[in-house]
């Protein structure tokens, strides 16, 4: 049986202080993560996986019939989209989910493009990103910073974007290079 001593007395002042500390620490941690990310993005060997399987031919994954053609897709719940560990905001739901297409481009093009996107993301947050990647190369990097990602492989961008619209609630996809829109949800 619980006694009076077992009950933790929580004063509103304590709650406010904890919330304030949480916000401060969250911001500091996100700043630290962003600095770490910028360090990685300035490293020329980022996205250069050293894999040694001589004689093996990489195989593309099978293209599974998309969920978007199945009536069940309309009944599935939306999945949360993170802001990534580099950003701490009080109301992340206020940022709309947005698809970012990462095409198969050389690392020396990808690094500055991501740097520009991420800098904009932390200085003036405008969206929560769902990265749609043509290759597996950016996946470990995006995973380290807790971003949402999807691998496209042979799936056309429009099909992948339509699925992501059901799954994450995105309504547009922009390219990480030049930020031009590559898909917009039809009304």
């Amino acid at each position: 049986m619980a006694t009076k001593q077992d009950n933790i007395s929580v004063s509103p002042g304590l709650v406010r202080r904890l919330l304030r500390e949480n916000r401060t620490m969250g911001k500091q941690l996100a700043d630290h993560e962003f600095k770490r990310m910028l360090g990685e993005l300035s490293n020329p060997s980022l996205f250069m996986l050293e894999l040694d399987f001589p004689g093996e031919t990489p195989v593309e994954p099978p293209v599974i019939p998309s969920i978007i053609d199945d009536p069940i897709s309309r009944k599935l719940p939306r999945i949360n989209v993170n802001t990534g560990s580099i950003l701490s905001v009080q109301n992340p739901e206020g940022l709309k989910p947005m698809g970012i297409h990462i095409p198969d481009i050389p690392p020396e093009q990808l690094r500055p493009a991501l740097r520009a996107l991420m800098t904009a993301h932390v200085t003036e947050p405008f969206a929560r990103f769902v990265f749609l990647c043509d290759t597996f190369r950016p996946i470990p990097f995006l995973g380290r910073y807790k971003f949402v990602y999807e691998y496209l492989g042979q799936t056309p961008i429009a099909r992948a974007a339509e699925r992501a619209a059901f799954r994450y609630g995105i309504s547009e996809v922009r390219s990480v290079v030049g930020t031009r829109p590559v898909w917009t949800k039809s009304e």
Partner: protein
Amino acid sequence: MNAMTPPSQRLGLLGDGFDPVGQLLEDLPEDVHTEYLTITDPLGEQDDIDALLVLSQSYALAHLPALAAMGKPCRILLRRSRSNTEEAGWVDGLGLLCDALAFTKVEHITLHALTEAAAQQLSQLTGQDVTVIGQLGRIETDRPTVPIRRDDPLVTFTYTEDDSTRSTRQARLDVFSWVRLRRLGKLFAADPIDKDMADLVAFAEGVPGAPAATPRSGPPTMIVVVPNGVGLGHVTRMMAIGKALNQKKKFRVIFWCFSRAAAIVQAAGFEVILRQTGVHLDAHPPDWRRWETVEFAKTLRFIKPDIVAYDGAAFDQFVLNAMRSPGCGRCGVLWVRRGMMRAETSRSVLDPEQYSDLVLEPGDLAVEADVGPTRMATAEFQGFCKSFIAPPITLKPYLPAYSRRDAMKRLGLRRGKYCLVSLGGAFGNWDELLWNIQEHARRNRITLVWAQSPLSSPPDDNGETMIRQFYPLSPYLEAFSGVISATGYNSFHELVMGYKGPVLLAPTNLERLDDQVARATYAGDQGWADVLYAARPEEHGAIIEDFMKRLRKGTLVTSRPGSFADQSNMAAALDRLCNTYAI
């Protein structure tokens, strides 16, 4: 089958999601190219399907206006009563449905039953034409007799073990698709009052002379579910198993991969379907699980694998739910379960045995030191599960082995003595260990090469520390005069079985990992390696100094076990598993 033919018919199913009838349909030869779609709004979703099957009269009554209004062929499966108390209501419901159907006067709705006996009785009762929905071919293999009761969540049966002894086994009924269940046991309905269960069991058992399920063709196919895990252990082990299978028999191995190591798996020649865990997404777990269930089921229906394999401690429910979805049941369940769990690990970790066909345990050279539950305990429910302990499985036998000269050249190493350091994530006083290693290497003029996961951030090139971030490590071992390593399954076996230089093991003391300390101690007792214990920091200096001296001298260790064993028996065990579901 594995031939990915587009579906010739999209059949909507309206009824309970895991209704055994919905599961059993995939064994009907005429349904071999059918895609099953779960329907909840027949009218609103009629454009998504070619035909509809309503799995009971209750669902038909609830949706009758929509069924009458939709223009697609609609079969209603009439079910018989489950108990005496239900009988009166059941008759009323049936009468109500028939009256309503007569009133609607539609021709696209037909009535069906599961068996001839049920069809006859229902025809007499309703005065309507009721036909059998289909007939499954009888399965004639030798298998245990399994009584089934609706009111008993467990099935209990007598099982003949491999050594011909007989034991009583149990499993939860709701973890199986009936497509699997009918191949694993001869079913019989144990409650004579429950006519619906009798019909279900009779339908599942099949009819002599009826055409069998369409045989599978093409290469055997295995979908491997790998959890995120710590490091690359799960992925590496499953790639090794995939390589072993490919060497013996061309298996198609597809990874359902929660690990960020997808690029590695693809580079190794496997197909990868990349996923993210609910934890990574910070998603509401039931929402995430619902998506995984639906999309994994979609994949199972499309790929039609012979085996679904899981390497990890506990199956996520999405795997089981997907395998119980219509069109997804005809495949075996392989549980790849490493031994050497910690002694204090609960026996409940063995629970997945009850729904596995085969537990494949990658053999451990330190098995004599294994006091974990996989060695010392028995699962509460073992179901139909068999077990197979394979010789130690690692990736090394399937990779090239570079000569010392080639390996050094590829790693960019010049002449000299090098020690590879590949440590785990947790080890007592980490800073002191690193200092000791660096200091004694310096004194003995040994250059340290730090191995880092290719999944981690790239190293800063500060010119002082030599870091190599490559995968796999094992082809390069000849470049090193000695290795300091954690004691995970893969690195331990690759070093003990495929390397001749001195090895210093620093077992990780992370509680959720395997018992690396026991494994390392065993290797130390056998003279295969030296061991650093996190709990005995006072010994570290002397052990590391002695190890570095032996590297300097170029000492070789001759007491280790020989070469890697052939995996023919493992391939044969998996082949037998495929055969269970081939018919």
